[in-house]
């Protein structure tokens, strides 16, 4: 499973304070904090069906992942409105997970069918 990791950090253009990190998902904030017991990260699933994200809004904890699964014939994406993260093209039955490490609300769309909208709400761990 290929996944992406986002954290607060460098600027990506003028519109966002988030950066997209590919591969390594180390989090400087976590490294400098006091170690504590943490629940194992969970992968939550969002199904894309009939040109809808289901659930439309998903609430997860920092460190968890969201996996989008496309059940439509039409290819879709889940693409952050600020273009910070993106699943890239998902054909029917394709799935891709993204790790969210920073609390916040992330509105996203399908890049091909922009009327399709969803939101990931990330709460503090």
């Amino acid at each position, binding site marked *: 499973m290929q996944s992406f990791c986002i954290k607060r950090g460098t600027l990506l253009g003028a519109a966002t304070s988030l950066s997209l990190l590919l591969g390594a998902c180390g989090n400087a904030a976590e490294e400098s904090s006091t170690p504590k017991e943490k629940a194992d990260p969970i992968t939550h699933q969002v199904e894309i069906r009939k040109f809808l994200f289901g659930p439309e809004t998903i609430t997860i904890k920092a460190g968890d992942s969201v996996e989008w699964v496309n059940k439509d014939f039409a290819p879709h994406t889940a693409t952050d409105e600020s273009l910070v993260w993106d699943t890239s093209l998902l054909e029917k039955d394709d799935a891709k997970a993204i790790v969210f490490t920073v609390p916040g609300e992330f509105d996203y769309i399908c890049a091909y069918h922009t*009327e399709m909208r969803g939101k990931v709400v990330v709460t503090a761990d």
Partner: protein
Amino acid sequence: MKLKLAAVLAAAAVAVPAVAESDKMNDLEIAHTAYTAGGLDIRYAHMALAISENAAVREFAEVMIRDHVAVNKAAVALVQKLNVTPQDNGLSQALVKGAAEARAKFGRLTGKAFDCAYAQNELGYHQVVNQTVEGKFIPEATVPELKALLGDALVTFKAHEKHAEKMVASLSCDA
């Protein structure tokens, strides 16, 4: 729902001969026509990408290619799974003839004239196709997998119809 297919087709930008609404189509004919309709829209889209410089039109055309290729790929997979051969029919032939005429007309246009002609045709085409799929193909299909595929495809095509409505509105073709 008794679909007045002939009237619907006549109202579309794509000129096609009337098809009697009482003409029942078998599964193989439905599969052929559905695949043909998708292929024709892909051809319109390629034409739009070759001619149009309008961002909204080009984006729509790219979506049409991506989505219709995906739906037709699923249709081919189903046909292969069922080991059947889709059957050419009057409606498929009418769609092909009408699309050829439309493409010939569009080929003489440029700029906004082309964009509006393409956009309005896409709206009319999807309206016709959607009414036909929903009112005729799905009710008349007997193979469950075909019926399911048509149902899923209809969701895609309805999204295209809405997208086409927005594209037409954004072009201000009546202005």
